[in-house]
């Protein structure tokens, strides 16, 4: 049988970069074909070519055996290609129906929007693929996982037969991701063909029929979940053997570094986001804070680092009360903070690497003498850290915006971990990063723990929490449901706690 889609020798050059180097790929009807590669490997470029946003320098695209010239996204849609973008293309204040109609409005009486016929079509599609979507719901009120399903419905409504999912799980909770995989399987079963772009090994093994690994713009190989395992895929992706499990000795907790008592913090909407949280954290241990995104972790971290004022309770760092301290005071007491959103909070993108590496120490010696910045000292410092932390930058003087996500994160990690610190607050330290960078950052965090630093690790990636933590605190609706020692923690137990279910309650 002819594959529904064939890419043959696709090459795309950008100034100084060969983004796609003679990539060939075939997609069978009803297949889930994973495209696996690190950030910057060329996956997204390839899909943008397929979707008509870029034009290949060489190579041909065939759809059902016929050569297709895709010059724009409307050509792609006409050819039956649809894409679920990493960042949703939805209008929040519109209803599901209105979003689905957008750009392809059905009308009656020559101009009146016919919402009802669209809505009933949505209902049909929704029930056929078990998407469970209410066409009348306003998009802004829907959880992220459901918004993604609205994106899928948009494609199905336009009768796309080739669906491209670009890093679809990066915004989802583990449960939502599982639901998505169910939907992808049922789509494939009914004859839709799916390209699944990701850098997450576990997901690929779970859902894909075939896996093609791309590295530096080239196809490294195609395999199947039956013939591959995580280790093999990771080394194909990175080009060397990768340590997936961090080896670490047992923690040797010292004295208590951070003491949080009955902390209450408001969210931006003045809701009680952190509602009476208490815990103690000792030097030399990692306390993981697990939980589905939006259960107060962000506000907790902001309160601990002085960015948000608690309304009640107390925070004590090495015997000093820091409940109402400023971020600078807290930093000067020896706190390092890897913020959740690195581009928004952790970096000044228009600044060079040098200045970002002294973003919170620029005002003290040796970087400033009286009020004058010491450019030589700042440059030496940067050169040293670029080397020590393996930051891939052509020069420390290039703007940090030109670096890849992994290297941007390394800039933050280098800045925060190169200071003498007592407490490390790391929020989503590896979100969106490739395997190599994740491995690197995990190793550095454990190194700091072994040096006696108290580490608070906030992450929505359960794997990460399980790997690095010595104790796990699970947050649900602003409270810590339970704190579990790593020896007693299983994925199931933590998963239940994340949903707010206390295993003890069920038994009693």
């Amino acid at each position, binding site marked *: 049988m002819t594959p529904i889609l064939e890419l043959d020798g696709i090459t795309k*050059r950008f*100034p*100084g*970069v*060969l983004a796609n180097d003679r990539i060939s790929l075939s997609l069978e009807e009803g297949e889930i074909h994973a495209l696996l590669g690190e950030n910057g490997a060329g996956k997204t470029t390839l899909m943008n070519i397929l979707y008509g946003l870029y034009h290949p320098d060489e190579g041909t695209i065939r759809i059902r055996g016929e050569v297709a010239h895709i010059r724009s996204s409307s050509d792609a849609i006409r050819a039956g290609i649809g894409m679920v973008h990493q960042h949703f293309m939805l209008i929040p204040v519109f209803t599901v129906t209105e979003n689905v109609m957008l750009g392809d409005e059905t009308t009656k009486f020559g101009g009146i929007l016919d919402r009802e016929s669209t809505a009933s079509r949505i209902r049909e599609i929704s029930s056929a693929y078990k998407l469970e979507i209410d066409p009348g719901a306003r998009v802004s009120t829907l959880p992220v996982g459901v918004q993604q399903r609205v994106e899928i419905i948009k494609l199905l409504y336009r009768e796309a037969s080739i669906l491209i999912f670009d890093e679809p799980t990066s915004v989802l909770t583990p449960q939502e991701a599982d639901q998505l995989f169910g939907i992808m399987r049922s789509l494939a079963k009914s004859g839709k063909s799916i390209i699944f772009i990701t850098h997450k090994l576990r997901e690929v093994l779970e859902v894909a029929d075939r896996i093609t690994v791309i590295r530096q713009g080239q196809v490294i190989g195609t395999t199947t979940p039956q013939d591959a395992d995580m280790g093999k895929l990771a080394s194909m992706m990175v080009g060397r053997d990768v340590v997936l499990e961090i080896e670490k000795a047992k923690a040797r907790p010292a004295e208590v570094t951070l003491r949080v008592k009955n902390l209450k913090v408001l969210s931006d909407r003045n809701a009680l986001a952190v509602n009476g949280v208490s815990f103690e954290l000792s030097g030399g241990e990692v306390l993981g804070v697990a939980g589905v995104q939006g259960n107060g972790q962000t506000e907790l971290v902001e309160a601990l*680092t002085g*960015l948000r004022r608690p309304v009640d309770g107390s925070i004590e760092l090495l015997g000093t009360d820091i409940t109402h301290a*400023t*971020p*600078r005071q807290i*930093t000067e007491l020896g706190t390092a*903070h890897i*913020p959740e959103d690195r581009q*928004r*909070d*952790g*970096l*000044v*993108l*228009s*600044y060079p690497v040098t*200045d970002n590496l002294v*973003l*919170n120490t*620029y*005002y003290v010696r040796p970087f*400033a003498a009286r*009020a*004058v*910045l010491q*450019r030589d000292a700042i440059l030496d410092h940067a050169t040293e850290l670029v080397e020590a932390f393996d930051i891939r930058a052509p020069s420390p003087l290039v*703007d940090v*915006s*030109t670096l890849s996500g992994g290297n941007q994160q390394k800039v933050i990690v280098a800045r925060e971990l190169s200071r003498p610190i007592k407490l490390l607050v790391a929020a989503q330290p590896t979100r969106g990063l490739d395997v190599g960078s994740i491995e690197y950052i995990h190793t550095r965090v454990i190194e700091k723990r072994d040096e006696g630093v108290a580490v608070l690790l906030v992450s929505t990636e359960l794997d990460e929490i399980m790997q690095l933590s010595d104790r796990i605190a699970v947050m649900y609706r602003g409270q810590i449901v339970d704190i579990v020692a790593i020896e007693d923690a299983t994925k199931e137990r933590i998963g239940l706690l994340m949903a707010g279910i206390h295993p003890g309650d069920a038994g009693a």
Partner: protein
Amino acid sequence: MTNAEGTTKKAGKSAVGIFFEEVSRSSLIVPVLAIFSGLLLGGVIVGLSSENVYTMWAVSPIQAIGNGLKAAWESYVTLFSGAFGSPAKMIAAIQGGDGLEIRRAFNPIFESLVKSTPYIFGGLAVALGFRSGLFNIGVEGQIFMGGIFSVWVGYTFTGLPAIIHLPLAFLAGALGGALWGFIPGLLKAKTGGHEVINTIMMNYIAFRLTDWLLREPMKRPGSTNPISPIIEDSARLPQFFQDPIRFHLGFFIALAVAALVYWFLFKTKWGFDLRTVGANPRAARYAGMNIVKSTIVAMSLSGALAGMAGANELLGVNHHLSQTFSPGYGFDSIALALLGRNHPLGVVLSALLFGTLRNGAMRMQAAAGIPIDIISVMQALILAFIAAPAIVRTIYRLKEPKKAEAGVHVRGWGGS
């Protein structure tokens, strides 16, 4: 392999092509081409507004177009000789040996510098605000406040030596402007009141305050006009030549202040604070910077620079306060700060351009009867090209810059 391909590709191009490509990547090319396009389009407008074109059109369209081109050419010749002086006159004057004639011949170029000076101060004020993430539209009002404060010190204190009186009057001007920047800065920092709105309002207050002061407390005794008394000689910025050349010390003060602003913004930790808050306020907060303080300091300093523009004009040129001493320096400053990419050196260069154009246009108006407003049209055109670098890049087929460095350094209305 990628590299090898890149080299061959480059070798295939002509040397000129490579040069043009290199230049087009530098940040200077867009402003330069914008100025060029603005002058070109301005010429078209001069041509189109020339009456000869229309009277001739019925007879011979080609002749009419020729007339238009001639009108545009002639007005540019008057513009530039008005701005820089005429070489023939200079030579003749030197040969003649008469001091007054020589000064007259060389006056245009000095007058261009005199006109540029307030633009340097004003442009620095706007640029410092932009760098700190603040859009100071209140420069015009701050110029008036600077004028009021400096003139008051200038005529009230008598008998002081110039070495004390002049700096005192000049700094009083800076203080007046700083006060007018401090208020919207405080409102922004403490209440979130948007500085664009508040500085516009502060402008009106400054204008009406000037009107009232000139009618009542600061009115020149015995005059029927709303003008202030003349300042003491000891408060005047010294002029370097005799009449009619008005070139004075203010120009060099402006250059020194520009260097100081550069040092402050890029070489000190305080400047690092301001620029970081301007570039990414959330990261600035994360890094422990005090956003409230930074906002207030930035607006006050911006106002102080604007106030210096007012002091410079009144202590250096006018020597008394009137309602019309600024022909909109403050508003033009916004445009020229953008043209100069909010960099002190860029500001000095574009201030020289604006001052020269304005001076040339005044003489063009006198000599060729072309209204001075044509300069406003040209400035607007240049600015439009600056604000939309995409247009310039399309017209001249330039490559996209690597990142969004061409963007305006100010946050949107919603974001703050």
